[in-house]
């Protein structure tokens, strides 16, 4: 089966990843993450000074700014800001930096679908680059259920999205393979998918939703692996003078 973007051969294939960290000189941390021809740049400033009215006495204030590629920011971008901020809040150890602000700016560079997932991945790489203390990392993938074939397609392009019956974006942290309940830990190590963020629209059945979650969960493991490799490469480059 061939995908609409013609570079992929299977429904569960992601587009090639690309990432780059520490690109911007003014920000404390920055990263770009690409899924094929979708690209998002993210910058992080902080822990830095925070406006008095946003100051929190016991933790850092997270601010997320989402900027569209075309046009002025609208309510879609506001909703994305909320989604990214509320997903990061439980992850960021903000209690370590009270009365400070962490500003995250997310800029779409190229849009060929699955922008929210791309933005999540760029954001986590930028936070790692900035050295913001985190409980865990995250990875995000979007999938659709095709309206004609009813097939689940991972990481859809703009063209594929136009044909979707339903669209699902999932975010998983690298702790999400939790055991179902702590008591029967010994009996079965049943790994169960646990979602950090989930956003589904369109028309879909309960089975479709959970199947999408499973498939995206598997795909996100590749994203986690990619993030690990990206960080490793950067660290090895920094350390090569010492360890050679």
């Amino acid at each position: 089966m061939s995908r609409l973007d013609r570079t992929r051969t299977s429904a569960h294939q992601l587009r090639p990843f690309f990432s780059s960290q520490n690109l911007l000189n003014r920000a404390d941390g920055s990263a770009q993450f690409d899924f094929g021809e979708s690209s998002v740049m993210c910058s992080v400033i902080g822990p830095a000074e925070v406006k008095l009215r946003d100051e929190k006495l016991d933790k850092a204030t997270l601010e997320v700014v989402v900027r569209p590629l075309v046009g002025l920011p609208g309510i879609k971008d506001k909703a994305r800001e909320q989604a990214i901020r509320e997903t990061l809040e439980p992850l960021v150890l903000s209690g370590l930096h009270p009365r400070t602000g962490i500003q995250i700016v997310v800029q779409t560079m190229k849009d060929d679908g699955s922008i929210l997932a791309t933005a999540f991945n760029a954001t986590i790489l930028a936070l790692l680059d900035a050295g913001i203390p985190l409980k865990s990392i995250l990875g995000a993938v979007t999938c659709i259920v095709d309206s004609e074939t009813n097939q689940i397609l991972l990481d859809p392009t703009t063209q594929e999205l136009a044909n979707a019956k339903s669209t699902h974006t999932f975010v998983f942290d690298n702790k999400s393979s939790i055991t179902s309940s702590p008591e029967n830990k010994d009996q079965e190590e049943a790994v169960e998918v646990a979602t950090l963020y989930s956003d589904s629209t369109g028309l879909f059945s309960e089975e479709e939703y959970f199947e999408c979650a499973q498939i995206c969960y598997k795909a996100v493991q590749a994203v986690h692996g990619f993030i690990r490799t990206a960080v490793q490469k950067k660290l090895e480059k920094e350390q090569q003078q010492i360890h050679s």
Partner: protein
Amino acid sequence: MRDADPSTNEREFLLAALKDGARIDGRKFYDFRTLRLTFGAEYGAVEVQLGNTRVLAKVSCEVIRPYTDKPTEGFLMFNTELSPMASAAFEVGRQTDEEVLVSRLIEKAMRRSRALDTEGLCIVAGEKVWSIRVDIHFLDHDGNLVDAACIAAITALLHFRRPDVTVVGEDVTIHTLEQRNPVPLSIHHIPICTTFAFFNNGERMIVDPTFLEEQVKEGDMTVTLNVHKEVCALSKAGGIPMEIDQILQCTKIAVVKVAEITAQIQAALEADAKKR
């Protein structure tokens, strides 16, 4: 968050070095920083790096109804909102003086110099025209946002292709990229900005100031020219007073810079066209 002022040491060192004939990054006075142009797979998007300054320009289009008093004219719009990504000093929803200046300069250099043929954007007079929108995103601010933004804007416009249309009577068909090759915009000329910064009572002038140089400068001026040595815009908003001769000297330097940059833009566009 306001930008922190440079320390006295930085300020004095920079001025002393300029007196000595040196710039902090090792450039000569009239050198631009290394210019890099990167295109994506899509038409009309370009990322410009001028040293550490980074700007992304994205051109898009839509069909709209023209104004009744100008039934054959299309639209060209610029969006130059400064993003906090470039510098924490740029806040969302609050325009800084710098933003106003940058926006107006780009507007003057690109739109008022009639670089784009807006009459050529007409599809059906009084009914349908193209509206071209240029979104300029500032990603990293290491000085001279204006020159970088103008290079990005004009390069993106040159790179852009709009869908082809056929008009039969009142019926307008807009062809998708698959059906028909998209068509380039008709660009009259390529305006390029050259920004100068002045130091030491205006005796020392440099091209393409970095952020630190901008913080220490006494004044600046932006000359917008095209390769035909036509002045499109000239902007000197405040700063120290200058001799007329010096302005002439600036334009002479700018002529050389504009030729270099225009050649580089065209070479980049040709290289990209070959890959497609």
